């Protein structure tokens, strides 16, 4: 069975929301629904800061409010993977929502692959699928001088995940001076530590700073940063919650 591979470069108008960029391209409309149960791989970059995406299939979301790396080219595989561990059933609609908050039009370049998880004997219907990984990534986030314990996940979609999961955190900063730490509920998992200086959206695995953290269902994840560098800095972060149960 062959995969479905969608690759496009599309301009998102200034100050607008595009509810599904895949549907905005007439040539891709026929690929909106997954033809078979599959694993989803989404890679994306943007031409300038200010565009954010959400990605989902059917009723579910696997990437929430994600900022992307700024690039003049198409996404680098695997460095610009947003999420490559989400699983859809046949017939699920692919959704890629883009929000441009700037006064200028910005290019979104993306690749969406649907890789079959069934073989040629598949005759239709739902199959048992692995749990999804849930991804959030943001940046640049301005962290003013003398900021103490800025809560990065405050109010975001997966600040609490409703299934047990394994958390991995990636971070970079625009220049030296930021320290991060992680609490799960009341437990301090990772004490204040310096992070990568790559000044871009984090890449897996280069910018890994915390990994293998067990997060009970609905536990509060507090990812905090402090800046005592003497000047304002910018931070970029990505979290991956690998769910242990499919919901």
């Amino acid at each position, binding site marked *: 069975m062959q995969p479905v591979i969608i690759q496009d470069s599309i301009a998102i108008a200034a100050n*607008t929301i595009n509810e599904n960029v895949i549907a905005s391209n007439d040539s891709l409309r026929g690929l909106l629904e997954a033809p078979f149960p599959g694993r989803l791989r989404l890679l994306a970059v943007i031409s300038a800061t200010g565009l954010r995406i959400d990605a989902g299939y059917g009723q579910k979301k696997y990437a929430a409010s994600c900022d992307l790396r700024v690039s*003049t080219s198409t996404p680098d595989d695997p460095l610009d993977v947003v999420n490559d561990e989400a699983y859809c059933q046949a017939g699920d609609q692919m959704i890629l929502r883009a929000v441009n908050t700037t006064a*200028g039009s910005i290019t979104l370049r993306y690749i969406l692959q649907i890789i079959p998880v069934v073989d040629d004997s598949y005759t239709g219907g739902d199959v048992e699928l692995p749990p999804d990984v849930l991804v959030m990534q943001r940046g640049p986030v301005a962290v003013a001088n003398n900021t103490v314990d800025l809560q990065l996940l405050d109010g975001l979609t997966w600040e609490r995940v409703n299934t047990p999961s394994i958390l991995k955190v990636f971070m970079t900063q625009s220049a030296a001076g930021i320290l991060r730490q992680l609490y799960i509920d009341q437990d301090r998992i990772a004490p204040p530590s310096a992070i990568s200086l790559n*000044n871009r*959206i984090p890449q897996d695995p280069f910018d890994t700073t915390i990994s293998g953290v067990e997060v009970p269902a609905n536990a509060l994840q507090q990812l905090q940063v402090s800046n005592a560098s003497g000047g304002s800095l910018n931070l970029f972060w990505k979290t991956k919650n690998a769910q242990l149960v499919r919901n």
Partner: protein
Amino acid sequence: MLTEQQEQELLENVRSVTDHMKMVDEVFRQMRVGQNMVLAFQCGHSGLYLPADYVKNWGRGYGVGLGPHPVSEVLDTDYFTAPPRITEDIEDFDQIMHPVGNTFAQVDYMLVEETAFQQNAAILVKDDPKMRRRIEVIRPKQLANSKGRLRVLQVAWIEAGKALK
């Protein structure tokens, strides 16, 4: 101390006697090197000037999100990508244009006249985070470019009975 007028008169006298090779002008030109000059970085794509501390403070206000190595943060138009479609969500024609992106061009350190720097200084991201000022510069260029598609869309917008600002 000579006044400017006295200096000019003296210069004319010296020139008239000796300066068949324009050597006096050359000496005076070299004397003025460094006066009213500033150090700056120049974007290799647009030619616009960036502040002298652009590389030193890379990531601290300049080039945020553009990676670890200093490059130009100046915006440029991508004429190869079509402008967004005119849909019902588009309320204002100003929302439509060819997309823009950071050039990522090389930056070079140089000495330039202060007036030249001021006239060709790039608008920095930190002074224009939502691109409003930069788009005011770029959009008229897109409309004036006959190879772009924005003018065609403008005609379509007007023919659809919609008003321009």
